[in-house]
């Protein structure tokens, strides 16, 4: 089997002036955290050969970022899109992506960015890996391809952890893993004029309506409001010993010291 990487990407909302979200092609943007994941996949393709598939879930307006991924060098673009998928939380999204990834098997790697720029949970990558029963390394910031495995690194608690992973596996990659390439204009012309974004609907995914969309979502966003930080900066003046006494007194009054 030739090397096959699936990269999960999201069309995020570019701007929401005064908190109002309008989902349109022009207001969509390739989630910037997913671009390094695609770049990683393209570099692995340059090493191993094979192909790269990009996968996204969302409304049809997301097609444009899939075409951008084709323009960057992905071989196949798939959009899981169905009105029944609307209102999905991260679990229902992961269930849907896992179903789509099963359809795209066989594969060696499934890649994600660490999070999205618009909802920022960081849950979809790990949850999808669990749904597919794949070994997972999160927050990967370096990789080295070897013959039948991949060496990857991540940093936890100021320690660099090195892993050797067999295929198939899933990774979430940190933005600094590699800078994404620029899109060539010829790539855009080819992606939009000659290549197609495939669509998978509910019927193609072998999922029941209970598992997906709003029904399949155990969490709901009740409200969203900007948080106000009321920090105050106070300068203490005087001799160092007196400042120390004041500081201890204030900390004690605030309950920070016994």
């Amino acid at each position, binding site marked *: 089997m030739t090397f096959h990487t699936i990269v999960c990407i999201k069309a995020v909302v570019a701007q929401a002036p005064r908190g109002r979200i309008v989902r349109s092609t*022009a207001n969509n943007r390739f989630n910037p955290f997913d671009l390094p994941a695609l770049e990683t996949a393209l570099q692995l393709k340059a090493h191993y050969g094979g192909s790269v598939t990009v996968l996204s879930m969302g409304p049809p307006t997301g097609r444009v970022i899939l075409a951008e991924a084709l323009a960057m060098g992905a071989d196949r673009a798939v959009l899981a899109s169905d009105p029944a998928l609307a209102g999905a939380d991260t679990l229902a999204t992961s269930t849907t992506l896992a179903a789509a990834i099963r359809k795209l098997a066989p594969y060696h790697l499934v890649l994600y960015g660490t999070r999205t720029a618009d909802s920022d949970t960081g849950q979809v990558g790990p949850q999808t890996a669990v749904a597919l029963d794949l070994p997972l390394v999160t927050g990967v910031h370096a990789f080295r391809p070897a013959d039948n495995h991949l060496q990857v690194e991540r940093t936890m608690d100021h320690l660099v952890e090195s892993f050797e992973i067999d295929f198939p596996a899933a990774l979430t990659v940190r933005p600094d893993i590699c800078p994404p390439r620029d*899109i060539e204009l010829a790539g855009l012309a080819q992606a939009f004029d000659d290549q197609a974004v495939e669509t998978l609907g509910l019927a193609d995914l072998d999922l029941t309506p209970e598992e997906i969309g709003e029904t399949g979502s155990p969490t709901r966003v009740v409200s969203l409001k900007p948080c106000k930080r009321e920090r105050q900066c106070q300068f203490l003046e005087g001799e160092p010993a007196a400042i120390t006494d004041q500081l201890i007194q204030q900390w004690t009054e605030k309950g920070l010291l016994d």
Partner: protein
Amino acid sequence: MDKLLADKHIAVRRSVRTFCERELRPIAAEIDQEARFPWDIVEKMAGLGYFGIQVPRTMDGAGLDAVSYAIIIEEISRVCAAMGLCVTVHNSVAVYPLMAFGTDRQKERWVRPMARGEKIGAFCLTEPNAGSDAGAVSATAIADGDDYILNANKVFVTNGGVADICLIFARTDPAAGRKGISVVVAERGLPGFVVGDLENLCGMRANPVSSIRLYDCRVPRDHLIGRAGQGLQIGMAALDTGRMGIAAQAVGIAQGALEEAVQYARQRRTFGTPIENHQAVQMMIADMATQIQAARLMVYRAAELKDKNAPFGQESAMAKLFASEIACQVTDAAVQIHGGYGYSKAYAVERFYRDARVTRIYEGTSEVHKMVIARSVLQSMG
């Protein structure tokens, strides 16, 4: 607005904007002041296909349409008009006539490296006593055996200081008047090919505009583009496309100035409030945005007609006339909103203001455009 554009156009705009914000924005003021052509950025642009926007992919171009071309020029100019100029002139009045009138052999020889951005093109029509009056060129290309011997003094050549492939408008038949003018390619480096000093210009300073002089410069006869005597026809066809590019450039300059003005109006406070809340400033912003929108639609309309292979010369001329005029008004208003700071090189609007001015002059002055448009309107009404 968005519905007028296909998804492809939105993606083209986004990719060019990302590149320009990252690569051009940080150096735009500096290359203007130093009058420096940024070769490193130009090489990156070349690698991404900016120098063969509408050349087919089989000829190493990007294979995009005219609407994409307009968007690309608009986006580059929104950040750095001088580089927008370099790209539009190369693509429109240098590459396009070679594609449209060149033989397969000529395209292979010149268009392919130009599309890859390995060679930069220039359009050499203007002379000290010929420009708007294109029929008055005095350069000559006299047949001599298998060659032409070129003698020319071409001035205000955009990209002149860096151009490798120059389209020279010259008289192959000095006795035949307007019908004796032809287009002959002269390559940099030939004996007798001299690049003059760079012009010290008011705006567009990062573009190496220069004179190009040819002294008994000998080129083979197969450097003739199209037929002998077809020069003015080729020139007019090139300018129809070129004007669309200049119009797109003017829209980009105006858009860049508007964004700077709005950003400034939000920060600057007078009489206890940001100046964006003053009605006088709001009136200016409304006029600026409306003018830009109208000009942009005119440019896209001309481009769309070109993509449909419909006549677009009148629309292109109208778009160029209108966009260049409003670019001057919009950049002027942007300076006004900035007050004294707008007159300082510390703020980008000062550069936009200088860059906008020439769009009313080059590739046909506003006055010549009015002549062209009036002729077209009068003819169409019988």
